[in-house]
């Protein structure tokens, strides 16, 4: 890429990511609507929602810890934007540093952490229930997610930088496939999609963690969620499915992989009822744990004897 083009790219990449995220939000709502035999919202609906929220009054509860309450959404948004920037850097500029997969894992926890901070600062009992559920959920899936990435690291022969991992596709083996499926479910929980939307459960805790947020602050949460819809599937594509390029067929193929993951997430979302928090913990620690231990053993045997498909 020539220098001016390069600069232009890095200028538009953040607004571009946000716009992509809003489009992904629309895809989620539209496909859900189609599954339920409805028409669904128009393309610009997420944008209208954000605009409207920006124009509304911000209410801060009397008992809230003001600074934390106001800062938490911004922290979460900054975290996911940074994560998506890292992924764009790897796909577009092909530059990476050793150990960036670990940085990415940390950045992926930041939105949930911000959510926990913000909702516990709001001083509402509903938000407190939501917070405790979110905390337990984070502890549940985080272990599985890290184990799934360890499988990838073993499969790729101890690589710790994403650009090298993105050259290979670990999901094309038994252990890699197991790890990919578990990671997909973890991303489902990270996004707060239906079987794991325990922390936001609108019918029981009335929005849970987000209950006290209104106006522009709620808009920031919505934008954060939209960017997560871009960044997390993209991260899965990079780690498990061999990343995607910027030219010709590799770009089309990459977009295909991204859409595949998003549609899988939406289908899981629309065909499952919400689970209880103890069921979710049991699922992640027990069932996913066993699957991942098996995957790690298979991957170790595979890499020791040089069998690619294990």
């Amino acid at each position: 890429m020539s220098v001016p083009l390069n600069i232009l790219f890095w200028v538009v990449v953040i607004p571009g990511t946000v716009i992509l995220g809003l489009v992904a939000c629309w895809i989620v709502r539209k496909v859900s609507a189609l599954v339920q035999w409805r028409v669904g919202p128009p393309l610009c609906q997420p944008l209208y929602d954000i605009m409207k929220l920006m124009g509304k009054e911000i209410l801060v509860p009397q008992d809230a810890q003001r600074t934390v309450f106001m800062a938490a959404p911004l922290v979460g948004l900054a975290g996911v934007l940074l994560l998506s920037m890292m992924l764009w850097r790897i796909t577009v500029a092909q530059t990476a540093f050793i150990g960036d997969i670990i940085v990415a894992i940390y950045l992926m926890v930041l939105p949930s952490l911000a959510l926990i901070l913000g909702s516990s600062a709001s001083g509402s009992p509903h938000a407190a229930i939501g917070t405790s559920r979110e905390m337990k959920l984070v502890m549940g899936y985080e272990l599985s997610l890290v184990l799934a990435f360890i499988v990838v690291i073993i499969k790729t022969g101890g690589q710790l930088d994403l650009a090298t991992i993105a050259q290979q596709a670990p999901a094309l083996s038994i252990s890699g496939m197991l790890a990919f499926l578990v990671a997909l479910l973890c991303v489902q929980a990270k996004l707060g999609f239906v079987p794991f939307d325990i922390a936001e459960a609108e019918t029981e805790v009335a929005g849970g963690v987000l209950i006290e947020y209104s106006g522009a602050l709620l808009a920031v949460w919505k934008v954060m969620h939209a960017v997560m819809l871009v960044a997390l599937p993209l991260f899965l594509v990079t780690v498990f499915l061999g990343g995607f390029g910027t030219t010709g067929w590799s770009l089309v193929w990459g977009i295909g992989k991204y859409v595949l993951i998003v549609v899988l997430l939406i289908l899981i979302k629309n065909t499952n009822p919400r689970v209880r928090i103890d069921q979710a913990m049991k699922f992640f620690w027990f069932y996913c744990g066993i699957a991942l231990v098996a995957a790690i053993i298979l991957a170790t045997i595979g890499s020791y004897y040089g069998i690619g498909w294990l």
Partner: protein
Amino acid sequence: MSWKIWSLKKSPWVFHVNAGACNNCDIEIVNLLTPKFDVERLGIKLVGSPRHADALLVTGVGTRQAVPRLKEVYRQTAKPCVVFLVGACSCGTGIFHEGYHVEGPVDKIIREEDPNAIIAYVPGCPPKPEAMISGIVKALSAL
């Protein structure tokens, strides 16, 4: 028209308040979200917290027990917001007129809280979902 009002019309999120209804109006409201009427295509979404809402759908007469809660919910709603009175009960007091438990009509209660509240009436016992959609559209185009 400012962009605030324009975008509010494009995505009114509603919160449902039962101020002592017989539950029939509430069932009709839930009907709105079914595939047959699908209000999401107009951007309307049912939300779980009044802080997220742009419109309150109030059903019922406003009983003595419900009135303080109704006022609290109105105070908690982020302004600008619209109040929809759904059903004969909340528009007047309907079949519960002069009942021992009635403190409403609801519009009077909301006006006590905020004299400049924007209130729209959707009569019927219960109103049809079509009537509610038409009421919402009319009220929003009058903004």
